[in-house]
């Protein structure tokens, strides 16, 4: 399970947690998130995220 951080607001997408409030189940890998998904905190696109080691 990897984590990805929003470059704009710092929100962290944790694959283990997902984003259930926006239809992304826990365990969803980054590649499987649709391009239409946006950062839940600031609204930017998936493209504005990068993988982070935490």
């Amino acid at each position, binding site marked *: 399970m990897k984590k990805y951080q929003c470059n*704009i*607001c*710092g929100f962290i997408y944790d694959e283990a947690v997902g984003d259930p409030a926006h239809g992304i189940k826990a365990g969803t890998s980054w590649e499987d998130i649709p391009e239409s998904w946006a950062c*839940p905190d*600031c*609204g*930017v696109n998936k493209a504005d995220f990068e993988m982070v080691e935490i």
Partner: protein
Amino acid sequence: MNHPVVIVGSGLAGYAVARELRRLDADQPLLLLSADHGGFYSKPMLSNALATGKTPESIINGDAEKMASQLNVSIRTYTRVVAIDKTNRTVILKNNEQLSYGNLVLAIGADQVRLPLQGNGVSKVFTVNDVDDYKHFRDALAGKKKVAIIGAGLIGCEFANDLASAGYHVDVVDIAAQPLGRLIPPAAGAYLKQKLEAVGVVFHFDTSTQSVEQIDNQLCLTLANGKTIRADIVLSSVGLKPRTKMAQEAGLQINRGIVVDQLLQTNDAHIYAVGDCAEVAGKVLPFVMPITHAARALAATLAGNPTPVRYPAMPVLVKTPACSTVVSPPDADKAGVWQVESNDDGVKALFYDDTGCLLGFALLGKAIMDKNDLVAKLPPVLA
């Protein structure tokens, strides 16, 4: 002749428009003009950079050269636009050069408000409005211990938390009776105050800063209540004022910001404004999420598909790790009352109008877990 879309400003708003437009239209020529180095970074990252281990250099995601190639955009750095000639559809640069545009996007941001302070130390007061300011601030912090912050709003609280957690002694002065006075009700303010005090922040409320005098190597703030504060560094964060001067001189309509409709269009059909400089359908919203929505709509419009911006409810996260906080402030002109539930774990403050509709909230501590459920109940900010 096909003149480019010219974007003035390389902050989040300018780059967001460039990126979204490139997604929709691979070929339309795009020229981005930056008054500084033009590197892409996120301004909100500045106020918690110590906690996240970022330096001014590492906050920049990509320099202008990298961004230009990534987005297939021409970028001119250190290129300040000083005037707009809307009759001839040109912008005039500081060196008198004129550049033609097909459509012009003003993404020129806002200035930090400067309070009228007395004293010979006023010129030493820092404001942080961009990454270059932040670099100066960080350089000045090296080896110092005491920081005084003027203003306990969003940015003041975030910097106070970041600096206190990094070991600085932090004093914060605000004319209000609580932190985030414009965004959250008193009970929530009291909770946030207590949590920030617990990490070492010292607040001075219900008073204003009158003067800043340099005494030896320190600055001495004299407050209206007679108290004095000694600090090595003073940071002012009392709010933002949209940059409207150039638009006004060009004959564009301005109010608090550059006036645009839901198409982000000014009263000139070929000039648009977006981000912190813009007043969109009467609203000045200097946050990231409105920029994201506005940039998408504007990109569609510029690509030939006129698209009004619509804002959903857009809660704002306050980056104060000492007290998780998310706010969705109600419109200032809406009547209603706060209903507050408060305990040691947090505060849940909900703002209802007299028909029982939820119009806003402030969630602190554990109450932030209710965010998603509550956002779903809020009306859109701009339908």
